[in-house]
């Protein structure tokens, strides 16, 4: 198991409903998150010598100018959108393990006043090989992933009650989390009465649209022991992908067995092999929840239940805080906030420091997944 690198600092802005972070600028949000993370670690901004991004990244020159970082030895971006969120930890770990950099800050941020990710298919520049999505009337990832959700229902008998349970569990967790956007507990009747947006997905199956920035400081395991916080080690990290998943919801020609998955099996195999542990060793799972059915499919990908049984698994109460694998005790993207996967890494760190609002007692291993999306997909296993 790797113990060579650790997350030693976490910083975040408040989470805002879409557009409500104005008049702060996007780079202002990023700067505030970085300064908070560096402060949390007990370091100075001039200690930072590396930046790791995903989702098209941000401008390293502007960030170093703006904050007074003196020198960068590493600046790189995972070549994926939401699929790459946990991949920033992989980039940071690689930079540190190879000696390229000593203190790498990983950054995720979004401000959706000008660009709404939910309309990604409609907003994307139409390309010759992707125009069929638009010609069919698909406007966003949620509508395209509804095709996968319906197929999973058809093949395995998964019920809307299972989607509802993912949302209800998430809402219950967020109800005690300060700063979460949706904190009102939800009943099954209320879920079932909510209008459909992309049948079989109703409005509540779609994640929030929020603004915010989150940053992490990663350094070597050796150095981490002298800093302000209890180190959270990167036990395994991966960003990778198979042709069978490819462009995911932009392609939709995965083989049958892969079509009804969340495309995470390869990442899962890499992570468990690297960490030398099994799914049963994971104490808390931070599962990227842009759309509730994809949580169920990822639970199958990551081996928490057999393929096709994810629906009955969640309906049994398994993902509640009292269940066999607590999922998203912070409320996730469905209820807390959406910062493209970063809030899940933050929660993993808080759980492993023993500081989480909804602490899972004795948590030692946390799984974090990147979003089911075009490859590379990503994930990480963290430990204390």
């Amino acid at each position: 198991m790797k113990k060579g690198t650790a997350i030693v600092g976490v910083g975040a802005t408040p989470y805002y409903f879409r557009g409500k972070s104005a008049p702060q600028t996007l780079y202002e949000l990023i700067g505030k998150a970085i300064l908070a993370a560096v402060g949390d670690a007990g370091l100075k901004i001039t200690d930072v010598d590396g930046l790791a991004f995903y989702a098209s990244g941000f401008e390293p020159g502007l960030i170093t100018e703006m904050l007074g970082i003196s020198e960068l030895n590493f600046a790189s971006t995972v070549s994926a959108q939401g699929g790459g969120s946990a991949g920033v930890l992989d980039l940071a770990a690689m930079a540190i393990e190879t000696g390229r950099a000593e203190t790498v800050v990983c950054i995720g941020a979004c401000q959706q006043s000008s660009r709404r990710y939910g309309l990604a298919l409609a907003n994307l520049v139409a390309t010759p090989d992707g125009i069929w999505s638009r010609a069919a009337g698909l406007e966003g990832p949620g509508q395209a992933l509804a095709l996968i959700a319906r197929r999973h229902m058809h093949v395995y008998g998964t019920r809307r009650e299972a989607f509802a349970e993912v949302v209800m569990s998430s809402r219950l967790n967020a109800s005690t989390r300060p700063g979460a956007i949706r904190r009102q507990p939800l009943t099954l009747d209320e879920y079932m009465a909510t209008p459909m947006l992309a049948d079989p997905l109703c409005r509540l199956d779609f994640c929030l649209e929020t603004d915010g920035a989150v940053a992490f400081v990663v350094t070597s395991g050796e150095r981490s022991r002298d800093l302000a916080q209890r180190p959270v080690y990167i036990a395994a990290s991966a960003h990778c992908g198979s042709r069978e998943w490819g462009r995911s919801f932009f392609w939709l020609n995965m083989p049958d067995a892969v079509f009804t998955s969340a495309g995470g099996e390869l990442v899962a195999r890499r992570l468990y092999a690297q960490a030398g542990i099994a799914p049963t060793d994971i104490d808390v799972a931070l599962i990227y929840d842009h759309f509730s059915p994809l949580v169920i499919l990822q639970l199958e990908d990551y081996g928490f239940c057999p393929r096709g049984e994810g629906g009955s698994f969640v309906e049994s109460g398994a993902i509640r805080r009292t269940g066999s694998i607590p999922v998203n005790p912070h409320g996730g993207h469905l209820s807390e906030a959406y910062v493209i996967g970063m809030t899940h890494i933050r929660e993993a760190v808080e759980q492993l420091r023993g500081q989480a609002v909804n602490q899972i007692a004795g948590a030692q291993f946390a799984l974090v997944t990147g979003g089911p999306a075009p490859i590379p997909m990503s994930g990480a296993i963290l430990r204390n």
Partner: protein
Amino acid sequence: MSAVSTAPDLGALEIPMDAWTQPFWDATAEKQLLLPRCSACSRFRWPPGPFCPHCQSQLTDWVQPGVARIYSFTIISDQRGHGADQPQQRVPALVEFPAADGIRILAAIVDAPLAEIRIGAELKLGWSQAVNAVVPVFSIPR
């Protein structure tokens, strides 16, 4: 009478084309649906592109794919309404061609009673006009 799926408004949609997708749109302009098949190994691929992913050949035939069936679909209530009394419901679907190695293309299911739209249902081919191309759409045969 149950609700019927409406067509997406393609009147303003400009279809971008390149050397590898042009034959698809040339065929639809003649109201023919043809899909790309590798001349070397006879495997279909989607989307049309410069290489066969199975044997990497660049030689391509354009072939009628046979029966079309619904592989999956979603129903989207159109909030914009177009001034209609009833909510408009569009049905983007993934259409499978079992005789063409099971490749799937995205297309709208139009003029179909929602109650009859099911995974596995056989489809009838139709057409809708975009700005610069004719787009395949599908309906449920009566």
